[in-house]
């Protein structure tokens, strides 16, 4: 594997652990809220907004590429037997290229959306002031890496 491939893999793994961490925080926060309410009568008020704004988008999108690499995104496999030969190769490359272009578009659009929120200092008022830029940022991050993965696969791997 070449250098870029290695970096890409490292990036995917890092984001994946980021997603896992988000899930752990969700579980801990909600339980802390329940326990604190029960024991001390004091809720953990940031729980809801933190989960909805930051943790859910992060745990749902950061691992997009890692899941793709592991073959975790489902495809229909019962209509065509393995495509082989030149035709199969071309189809395989077109598939990753098309998906790559699609995710580039998602990355660009959601990225500029997040950037705008950063530049304008957009805030959601709540128990505390939540900077929205960071909430939006998970999407272009996850989609950006999967675009790289798809384009890399288009150029590199001999298609299936």
């Amino acid at each position, binding site marked *: 594997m070449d250098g870029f491939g290695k970096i890409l893999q490292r990036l995917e793994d890092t984001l994946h652990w980021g997603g896992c961490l988000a899930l752990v925080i969700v579980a801990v926060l909600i339980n802390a809220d329940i326990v604190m309410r029960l024991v001390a009568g004091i809720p953990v008020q940031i729980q809801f*907004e933190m989960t909805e704004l930051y943790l859910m988008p992060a745990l749902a999108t950061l691992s997009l590429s890692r899941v793709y690499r592991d073959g975790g995104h489902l495809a229909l496999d019962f209509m065509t037997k393995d495509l082989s030969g030149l035709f199969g190769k071309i189809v395989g490359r077109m598939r990753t290229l098309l998906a790559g272009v699609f995710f580039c578009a998602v990355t660009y659009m959601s990225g500029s959306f997040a950037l705008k929120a950063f530049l304008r200092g957009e805030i*959601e*008022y*709540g*128990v505390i002031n939540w900077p929205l830029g960071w909430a939006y940022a998970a999407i272009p991050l996850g989609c950006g890496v999967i675009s790289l993965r798809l384009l890399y696969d288009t150029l590199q791997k001999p298609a299936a």
Partner: protein
Amino acid sequence: AETLRLGDFQSTSHVVSLEGTTRWMFAVEQATNGAIKFEHFPAQQAAKSAAQLDAVNNGILDAALLGTLYHSETLPLNSVIGLPGFYGTAVQGTEALQKMLAEGPLREELLDAGVMPIFGFVLPPYQVLAKKHLGGVSDWKALDIRTSGSTQAMTARALGSVGISIPGPEVYTAVERGRLDGVLFPLASVPGYNLQEVVSHISTNGSFGGYSFVMVVGRDKFESLPADVQSVMLEKGREVATHVAKVQDDSVGSLAAEWKAQGIEVYQFSDAELAELGDAMQPVTADWMERIGGEKAQLVLDSYRALTSKK
């Protein structure tokens, strides 16, 4: 004939849609003899609640019914309507809002956001629904009250309760099972969630915050329309705003009667209780002022107070 795509986050069975949005579209189509037609996308079909304004600016939609509180980042001044303790009826609140949309900072803010305000109206003020009678401030201590949005959460805290965020679809179960002691809710939306099934006490004259809707058309789109169409839209808008406000106030009356017949305690706060609650909720307005800041916010607040203090 021109067809406008109109986005809406309410479902078509809600009174706001029946007597507001749908009625206005129909009136405009009639008055322009079909020169203007609408394609209606209710229930967030075209864009999520918080994305309606962006959708108009991006050309996904031509017009939209905005729930201004969903856009408090872009429309901070318009969030003044969310504050507790101001208008007492939908008619009063709508009159105030319409005046402020006709000229002044609320209008300018919408224009700056790229949209032309056509008409605006409010929901009747939020009331409290609970499993026990909530009167003066002492009754509210340490209760779990479902609120939506930061202003309401702060209102609950100002009253000594805890503001709890729970997604709309789960409120019913949460109240039924006692996770929540009470809910701040606009009465017109109670049947939609069937909350009357799970509470035993409903207030009718409280003012725990407001909610405003503004019908907007993209500025460029609006300016491209013939002058007579523009004035028809505005004129029908004024009529519909008054109409939907009145219908809502009336429906609150009939809903209250219906609930009473079902054995629910439908009650009014005494003047003393209202004054006590009003005092306790003062910090919410002070916080809003501090957060938004600036002369404009003061101006908006002053004119809103003046417009809603008249009986």
